[in-house]
């Protein structure tokens, strides 16, 4: 049947065929929409449940106070600052190393067997369970490097754990910058570094940051690596003081504290573990939100 066979007035009339297509279209749309809702509902439910359970203990005092009466009362300040220490130090180590290594691998390294091996190693390391990293940290930092059970050992272990993921995500971000940009730069006599600095990095920085920031929540949430290398159940520090630990001290951490008050200490007020969880979640969310803000700002400056 040719188009000419349709009478002129009926050319754009809805046929049964078209109607069926439209029906399929709307069914597909609703399926995807309902999946999105199905995904969001548990998230909202978890947060709401946490907040509701935590409400009795959630106040400023809970954050800045030290635990009292065997953690049955008081706050979580040592755990909160301990987590800050661990996250900040571990990322201060792993982010620069990871980003620089990724730049080397993606921009400079030749495609030979050694670099392919390194790539394979990085990808596989990213998938190693954290408990294995914990054991490594125990052997390497606590014993071999004689750093003892300390914030430094724990942070370095977390750094080792986050490093391969940062390398992988940074490479991803660098690879998303079109090759033609680099070639255009090389054609006019720019060196590799000039190309990287003026074209590649400005256009991949938002992706790089996203990868790094995502590791904040991982570093903050992991229990095993720090339990083996430097986190303790209880450590007395001064209430409300930010720099309360030394690098060679052991420390408390939110993830570990949550485990302690939930399972190890009898007769804890029910709201305390929940409030601890809310603080942990809130810290991570705060970091993520500011990261999103930064990304939007950087994205708006992206030029293609």
């Amino acid at each position: 049947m040719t188009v000419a066979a349709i009478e002129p007035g009926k050319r754009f009339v809805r046929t049964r065929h078209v109607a069926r297509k439209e029906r399929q279209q709307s069914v597909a749309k609703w399926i995807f929409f309902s999946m999105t809702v199905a995904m969001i509902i548990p998230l909202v439910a978890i947060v709401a449940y946490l907040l509701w359970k935590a409400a009795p203990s959630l106040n400023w005092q809970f954050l800045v106070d030290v635990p009292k009466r065997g953690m049955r009362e008081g706050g979580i300040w040592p755990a909160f600052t301990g987590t800050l220490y661990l996250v900040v130090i571990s990322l201060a180590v792993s982010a620069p190393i990871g980003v620089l290594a990724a730049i080397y691998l993606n921009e400079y390294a030749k495609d030979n067997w050694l670099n392919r091996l390194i790539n394979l190693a990085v990808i596989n390391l990213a998938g190693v369970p954290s408990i294995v990293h914990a054991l490594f940290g125990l052997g390497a930092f606590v014993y071999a490097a004689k750093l003892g059970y300390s914030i430094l050992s724990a942070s370095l272990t977390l750094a080792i754990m986050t490093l391969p993921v940062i390398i992988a995500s940074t490479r991803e971000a660098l690879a998303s910058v079109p090759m033609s940009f680099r070639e255009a730069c090389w054609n006019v006599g720019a060196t590799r570094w000039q190309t990287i600095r003026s074209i590649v990095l400005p256009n991949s920085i938002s992706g790089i940051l996203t990868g790094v920031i995502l590791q904040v929540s991982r570093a903050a949430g992991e229990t095993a690596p720090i339990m083996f290398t430097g986190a303790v159940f209880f450590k007395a520090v001064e209430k409300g003081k930010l720099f309360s630990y030394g690098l060679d001290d052991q420390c408390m951490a939110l993830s570990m504290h949550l485990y302690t008050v939930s399972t190890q200490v009898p007769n804890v007020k029910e709201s305390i573990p929940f409030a601890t969880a809310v603080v942990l979640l809130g810290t991570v969310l705060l970091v993520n939100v500011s990261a999103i803000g930064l990304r939007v700002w950087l994205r708006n400056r992206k030029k293609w």
Partner: protein
Amino acid sequence: MSAPSDKTIVVQDLRLAYGTREVIHGISFEVGRNEIFAIIGPAQSGKSSLLRCLNRTIDFVAGATMTGTILFEGENVRKTRDVFALRRKIGMVAPLPVGLPLTIYDNVAFAPRCAGMHDKHELDGLVERCLRQAALWDEVKDRLGSLGTALSGGQQQRLTIARALSHQPDVLCLDEFSIAIDPVTTMRIEDVLKELSREITIVLVTNLVQQARRLARRTMFMWKGEIVELGATEVVFSEAPADRRTYDYVHGIFG
């Protein structure tokens, strides 16, 4: 060193292999000073690869090995000490327009800045001159601060040409520059090239045989990594070129 000859580029027995596959099989030719030298040939004949050898961007292709000699102004390209200076001497325009994700001004000022020129006054003058030479100045002079990537395809191609001129090359290589632009703009750029050829040497790779005919003094016909014919454009496009295949290709009956 030998006395300055009237040859800008001398290629001797150039071979290029990607991995183990040789794609240029020992070609030799010369390009004279301030001439427009056209290279024509069907797809895959190694034209783009040849240009990459000239400015040594072939270095960036893993596994590519080049042998033979390329002399640029008497200097061996393969042994040059400052490859970045070499690339500034040999401008290159790629087939597809690439506006760098920078402002129009910065696109043109990029190369001079990489070479260490930072004087604002000097840069302003250079940017204007290059944009004028690329027939783009009138269209963008009021918005030099807007993004190069936001220009139309044809404008971006002229921006690419302006960028290739910004480092004041002695040779300008163009690889199928008209692939992404309309006939009118193509004509304008062809006029620009004729103008430029008074001062610099132009190597023009083109799929449009008529373009070679319009512009070039000499034309080289490449096929499968070899030179089939190299001669004055009138001869190559005449009814009786030296090689039968040239006649077939030029007249569109290549099979």
